[in-house]
């Protein structure tokens, strides 16, 4: 299977290892990965600010780059939610859009729903705190949202669970927002940071050693707070855990 790799702009520039880990995980599973180098940003920051004129050309550019791939995979629930839910406003009726929308997947979704992976080989002898990034959680339904009365499930946890030695943190608030929220992190700096600090306190209490998420943006915000506090909690994107990376010594 050949997929187009969609790498969020800030991962490309700031967290290259997350994208490399994604490539490694996919290739290990026999997936042929192609990174179209013309890509930049899906346009979410503009869209979420309400700047539709500034978003449209980026959505069109994205469609042009990715529409011919059988499937598109991305290590970010948020950016995939943009394609799946928000692109409709910009690309409705454009040739190839329906195909693109139906075939763009977040990494864990792709592993669980498309590759039908039951378990993942490897070891990770650490206590892991899963941060349920909201757009993956409620936008892509990657896990049970605590508001809904439905059976429990979590695609992330399903993948991590089979790693040898892994333990999970039991949080008081299983899926509260970390407060990143894109430009919200700047516009509402005080609330954003308070939300992040509260989330971290919950992980601290629960004994989290490694905090992971399907979205590096949430983790960038949380890591920024952790570094300021010199906390011992380490941050890893789920792709890095799955690719067998060591737990980092410091914060990136």
């Amino acid at each position, binding site marked *: 299977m050949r997929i187009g790799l969609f790498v969020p702009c800030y991962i490309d520039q700031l967290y290259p290892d997350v994208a490399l880990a994604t490539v490694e995980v996919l290739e290990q599973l026999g997936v042929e990965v192609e990174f179209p180098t013309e890509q930049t940003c899906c346009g979410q920051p503009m869209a979420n600010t309400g700047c539709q004129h*500034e978003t449209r050309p980026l959505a069109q*550019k994205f469609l042009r780059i990715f529409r011919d791939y059988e499937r598109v995979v991305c290590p970010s629930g948020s950016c995939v939610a943009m394609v799946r839910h928000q692109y409709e406003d910009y690309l409705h009726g454009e040739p190839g859009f329906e195909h693109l929308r139906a075939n763009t997947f977040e990494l864990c979704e792709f592993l669980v729903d498309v590759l039908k992976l039951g378990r993942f080989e490897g070891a990770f002898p650490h206590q892991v705190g899963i941060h349920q990034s909201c757009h993956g959680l409620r936008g892509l339904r990657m896990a049970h949202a605590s508001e809904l*009365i439905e059976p429990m499930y979590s695609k992330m946890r399903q993948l991590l669970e089979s790693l040898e030695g892994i333990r999970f943190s039991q949080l008081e608030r299983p899926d509260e927002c970390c407060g990143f929220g894109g430009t919200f992190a700047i516009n509402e700096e*005080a609330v954003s940071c308070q939300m992040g600090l509260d989330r971290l306190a919950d992980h601290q209490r629960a004994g989290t050693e490694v905090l992971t998420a399907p979205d590096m943006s949430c983790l960038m915000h949380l890591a920024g707070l952790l570094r300021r506090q010199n906390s011992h909690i380490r941050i890893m994107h789920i792709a890095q855990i799955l690719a067998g990376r060591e737990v980092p010594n410091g914060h990136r």
Partner: protein
Amino acid sequence: MAHANIEHAVDAARFIDNQERTHWHDQALWFVRVKRDRAAGSVAEWEELRSRAAQIKRHTMSRLADYLEQFEEQATRRGVHVHWARTAEDHNRIVLEILSRHHVERVVKSKSMLTEECHLNPFLERHGIEVVDTDLGERIVQLRKEPPSHIVLPAIHIKKQEVGETFHQHLGTEKGASDPNYLTEAARGHLRSKFMAAEAGITGVNFAVAETGGFVVCTNEGNADIGISLPRLHIACMGIEKLIPRAADLAVFTRLLARNATGQPITTYTSHFHAAPPGGELHVVLVDHGRSALRTSSKFREALCCIRCGACLNTCPVYRRSGGYSYHATIPGPIGSVLNATQDAKTYHSLPYACSLCGSCSDVCPVKIPLDQQLLALRGEIAEQKYLPLSKRVLMKLTSFVMCRTWLFNLSGKVARRIMPWMPRFLIYNRLNAWGRQREIPEFPKQSFRELYKKRHEQSR
């Protein structure tokens, strides 16, 4: 109410400055959310109830005029006086006329967000009528001359010591006393005398039934019921969106409302009014006040389905950490941001941005209003109407310009990664950098993914 433009972030930051109170406020509301989860989880068909409620409300909105006429016809047949008010001013005038006709000087009122929205209390007071809010929380804020900060828990922002102080001042309770049992008992005695003296009772309406011409009022304290069963005159004020078609639909809504609002299986008192008792008079005031206008918007009309359970406030991570007053509106929180910004985008331009788009509000909503999507759509309207601050507009234009040109994106990244590691701290972490106030910025890697990928590709060849 005329307001200068509201900047939610400024008031939120001020609220958060008091860390102890912020945590306390957040915990108090989270506690309600946890109770809600437990109550909802005890109903196996919860999600089915939400679907039914959502559908019933949307159906009603699609035929609202027919159902209003049916309601009026049925209610009138039973001797209920039905009034129609297009605006808040119409509503207040109608209520005043009814009260004046009966020479009423003292009114007791149970909780009604509609009368808050219309600012009925100050209007009646200006006309020499005493209005006493009888819900304990509402009475507390009334004595303190504050508006409610939450639509179900009006005094959630006030500590018991502060209630004790207020009651000491107004009701003569012991100085320093703050035991909720003691304070509630004092309020009971105080309000009993108000109930005994009142010549009319005003209530809100939770649900009105088109088929029967009746309406339902839900309370826990019993204040609405005492307030309208002692005097002969009962005036019920309702927004036109409170209608549901059939009495049987009440089952769906009474099962959802209290569980979602406070985690109770049902409110203590769920009263059904269809006619005045002998010798009494029952009036219903149907109020539009912007509702028919909101209904014309395909993007936002679902907000009219709201049953005012307050669950979106309780679950909202922003509301819990910024308090009701930071919204400067009768209805705060996610639903309030939608209702206020759709009515007045200029004044309330910052409210749709007081949201991290986490979506918890939409999942907790008993009638499935897509609140997070509406808040996002509102940002589009605000940008379109040029209410977005210039700095943001320019930044977004610039970002888009760069992102549309791959070479420029690559170049900018390269330059930033070269420069940033050499920048002295004071240049990065200063007043202008809101990110860096409490957070470190990420360390810049030597190479971008695309550079590493290219190298990796070349090596493998």
